[in-house]
C-alpha cells in the first residue's frame, strides 16, 4: 500500500507530544555555542555530518568517536527526549546492550535500568501464554541480560556524556537543518541557529532525524506506508502498588472494556501502562487527567495512590523506504522505517543501524576498506527494516483485527489457546526484537552450513592467564579491524599464512583452544565450555571472521584462499554478491 488512506485524520503519531501531560522528568539541557562558521570561519567540509541527536544519531556519533573518526552532529533541540515529552522507547535488547557495552555506557544502563525476562499474556482473566527468556535458547550465554527497561532519554544522556569524554565528535545543539543539496562528491547543508544561518559541506550525511525526516521529503525518497485506526494512550506512573517485574500484556483486559493493555516497569520505579483505546478515539479526551485516573483505578482499584509522570496518546503507522542510501545520504532509525511499538523493534533497530554503518564508515575513511562497502549497509539494514516492519504489522493486525473474518479467527485462536498449547503460538502481542540476520549482503560470504550474516553473542571465554574475557573485549582490541577466530591447532603453514594476512590486511587473529591444548599463536584464548565456538556456529577445526559490529562475515575450515576472499568481500573489495 503506497500513500495514505483518504479517510485518515491526522493524530499525534508515535513521537507526538501535543496532548502529553504529567509531572514529567528533569532533562539535561545542553548549551548553544555559536559555531565557528558564524564567526568568520570558512565553510568546512566534514567527512561525516549526522543530523538528529536521538538514540540512533547519538549511537552512531559515539561509535565513530570510539573508532577515532571525526564527525559533526547537529540537532534542532537542546536536550534529549522529544521536546521535553521524554518518553518513547523503554525496552532494550541484548544486542543493543552489547553494543552499548562496547561504547562504554553499559554499566550506567545496568545500574539505572530494570532487568526482566518473564512475559505473560492474558485474555480476560486467563493467562494464555508466558515465557522466560532466560530459559530460552542462548540468551543466558551473553554477558548482557535478555532485556533491560529504561527510559530512552537516559541512554541518550549517557551517550552525550560519553561522546564528550571520547572527543573527536562535535555536538551542536539548536542547530536545525533547513536546506540541503548534493553532488556526487559532497553535500551542502544549510543550518539555522539562534545566532544565524550558516553552511557546511559533508562527504557523508546521516539522516537520523526520525519519523518526520525533512531529508526524506526533500530527496523524495519512495516508501511503503500503512496506517490504521488503532489508538493507544500511555500512562507512565509511580504508585503504591508493586506488581511483579514482568512484561504483562492483556489481549482483552476486563478492566479496559475488553481491549489490550501493556504493563511494564522501567527506571525510577516508573510503570509504563499502555492502554488500547477505541478505534479512532479522540487523543485529547483519552489523555485528560481525570479520564486517565479513572482508567488506572479500574485496573488497580480506587485506593491506589498514583503519581502520573507522563501521559501520551498515540496512533502508529508503519513505513519503510525502498533504499537506505541516496547519494551521499544514509537513512537510519525512524528515518528509514517506522514501526508500531510492539516488540521493541523501533529504537533497537536504530541502534543496530548505527552500529552497522559506524565501522564501515570508519574503515572507508581510514582507507582500510573500499567505499563500495558502504552499499552493504543498504543490503543488511534494509533487510532488517523490512523484517521488522513485517513482524510488527502482524502484531498490529492481531491486536486490532478488522471486523469480520480477522476478528473471528482471533476469537478462535484465543479460545483454542486456553485449551491447547499449540494455539499459543498464534497469540501475538509482540514478537520481541532480535539481532536481525543478513541473508543476502554483498559483504558476507555465504556457504552451506555457515552462519555468515548472523550476530555473535557477547559470550565468555578465558584469557591465556585464566581470567575471564568476552567477545566485546576482543572487538575492543581489534579497534575497528576484522577479527579472525581460529579454532583448534594450526599447521606451521597455516600459522604463517595467518601472520601474513594480519600484516597485509586490517585483520587481527586469535587462536581459540580447549582447556589443555598447547598454544601456537601468541594471541590465544581458551574456550573451555565451547561458548565461543557455539556463538560462531562452528565445530572442530574452523575459523570465523567476526566484524566490528559483532556479526559473522564468514566461516570456514582451512586457512586458505576462502578466508582471503571472505576478508576482501567484507572490506568491499569484491562488489558482487555471493
Amino acid at each position, binding site marked *: 500500500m503506497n500513500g495514505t488512506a483518504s479517510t485518515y485524520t491526522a493524530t499525534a503519531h508515535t513521537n507526538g507530544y501535543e496532548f502529553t501531560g504529567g509531572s514529567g522528568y528533569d532533562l539535561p539541557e545542553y548549551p548553544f555555542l555559536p559555531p565557528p562558521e558564524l564567526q568568520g570561519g570558512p565553510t568546512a567540509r566534514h567527512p561525516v555530518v549526522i543530523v538528529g541527536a536521538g538514540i540512533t544519531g547519538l549511537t552512531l556519533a559515539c561509535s565513530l568517536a570510539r573508532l577515532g573518526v571525526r564527525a559533526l552532529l547537529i540537532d534542532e533541540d537542546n536536550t534529549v527526549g522529544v521536546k521535553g515529552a521524554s518518553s518513547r522507547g523503554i525496552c532494550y535488547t541484548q544486542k543493543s546492550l552489547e553494543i552499548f557495552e562496547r561504547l562504554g555506557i553499559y554499566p550506567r544502563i545496568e545500574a539505572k535500568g530494570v532487568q526482566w525476562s518473564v512475559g505473560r499474556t492474558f485474555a*480476560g482473566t486467563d493467562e494464555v501464554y508466558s515465557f522466560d527468556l532466560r530459559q530460552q535458547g542462548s540468551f543466558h550465554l551473553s554477558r548482557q541480560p535478555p532485556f533491560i527497561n529504561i527510559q530512552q532519554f537516559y541512554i541518550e544522556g549517557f551517550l552525550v556524556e560519553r561522546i564528550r569524554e571520547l572527543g573527536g565528535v562535535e555536538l551542536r545543539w539548536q542547530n536545525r537543518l533547513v536546506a540541503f543539496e548534493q553532488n556526487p562528491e559532497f553535500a551542502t547543508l544549510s543550518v539555522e541557529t539562534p545566532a544565524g544561518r550558516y553552511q557546511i559541506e559533508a562527504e557523508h550525511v546521516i539522516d537520523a532525524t526520525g519519523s518526520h525526516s525533512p531529508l526524506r521529503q526533500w530527496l523524495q525518497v519512495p516508501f511503503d506506508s500503512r496506517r490504521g485506526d488503532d489508538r493507544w494512550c500511555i500512562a507512565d506512573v509511580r504508585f503504591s502498588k508493586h506488581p511483579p517485574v514482568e512484561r504483562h500484556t492483556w489481549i*482483552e483486559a476486563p478492566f479496559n472494556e*475488553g481491549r489490550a493493555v501493556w504493563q511494564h516497569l522501567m527506571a525510577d520505579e516508573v510503570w509504563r501502562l499502555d492502554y488500547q483505546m477505541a478505534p479512532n478515539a479522540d487523543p485529547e479526551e483519552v489523555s485528560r487527567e481525570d479520564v486517565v485516573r479513572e482508567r488506572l483505578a479500574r485496573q488497580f482499584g480506587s485506593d491506589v495512590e498514583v503519581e502520573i509522570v507522563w501521559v501520551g496518546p498515540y496512533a502508529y503507522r508503519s513505513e519503510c523506504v525502498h533504499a537506505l542510501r541516496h547519494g551521499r545520504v544514509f537513512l537510519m532509525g525512524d528515518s528509514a522505517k517506522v514501526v508500531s511499538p510492539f516488540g521493541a523493534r523501533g529504537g533497537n533497530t536504530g541502534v543496530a543501524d548505527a552500529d552497522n554503518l559506524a565501522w564501515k564508515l570508519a574503515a572507508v575513511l581510514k582507507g582500510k576498506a573500499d567505499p563500495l562497502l558502504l552499499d552493504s549497509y543498504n543490503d543488511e539494514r534494509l533487510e532488517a527494516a523490512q523484517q521488522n516492519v513485517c*513482524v510488527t504489522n*502482524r502484531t498490529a*493486525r*492481531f491486536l486490532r483485527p478488522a471486523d*469480520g*473474518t*480477522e*476478528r473471528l*479467527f*482471533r*476469537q478462535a*485462536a*484465543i*479460545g483454542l489457546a*486456553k*485449551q*491447547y*498449547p*499449540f494455539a*499459543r*503460538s*498464534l497469540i*501475538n502481542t509482540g*514478537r520481541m526484537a532480535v539481532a536481525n540476520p543478513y541473508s543476502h549482503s554483498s559483504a558476507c560470504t555465504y556457504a552451506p552450513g555457515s552462519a555468515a550474516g548472523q550476530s555473535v553473542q557477547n559470550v565468555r571465554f578465558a584469557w591465556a592467564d585464566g581470567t575471564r574475557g568476552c567477545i566485546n573485549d576482543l572487538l575492543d582490541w581489534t579497534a575497528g579491524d576484522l577479527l579472525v577466530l581460529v579454532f583448534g591447532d594450526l599447521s606451521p603453514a597455516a600459522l604463517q599464512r595467518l601472520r601474513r594476512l594480519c600484516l597485509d590486511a586490517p585483520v587481527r587473529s586469535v587462536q581459540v583452544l580447549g582447556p589443555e591444548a598447547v598454544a601456537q599463536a601468541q594471541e590465544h584464548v581458551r574456550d573451555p565450555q565451547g561458548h565461543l565456538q557455539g556463538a560462531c556456529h562452528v565445530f572442530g577445526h574452523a575459523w570465523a571472521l567476526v566484524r566490528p559490529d559483532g556479526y559473522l562475515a564468514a566461516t570456514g575450515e582451512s586457512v586458505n584462499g576462502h578466508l582471503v576472499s571472505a576478508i576482501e568481500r567484507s572490506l568491499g573489495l569484491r562488489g558482487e554478491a555471493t
Partner: protein
Amino acid sequence: MKQNAHFQDADAFYEQLLDAHEGLNREQAELFNARLILLLANQVGDARVLKECIDAARQLPQGAGMGVGVE
C-alpha cells in the same frame, strides 16, 4: 491429535490466512474456509485424529458461547 505447536512459522501462516480473506464477502469467506478445512483434512488423513479435531473444535472453552462475538 497434536496439542503442542507443530507450525514451522505460525505468524506467517496466520498472515497468509488473513490475507487470503481480504476482499471476500461473508459467503465467499465461508466457502473459502470450508474448502481450506477439507484440503487440510486430507493432509492429515488419519481418521482418529480428524475425529478428535472435530470433537475439540466443538468443545468451546468455559464462558465462551458458540457464535457469540468477543465484544
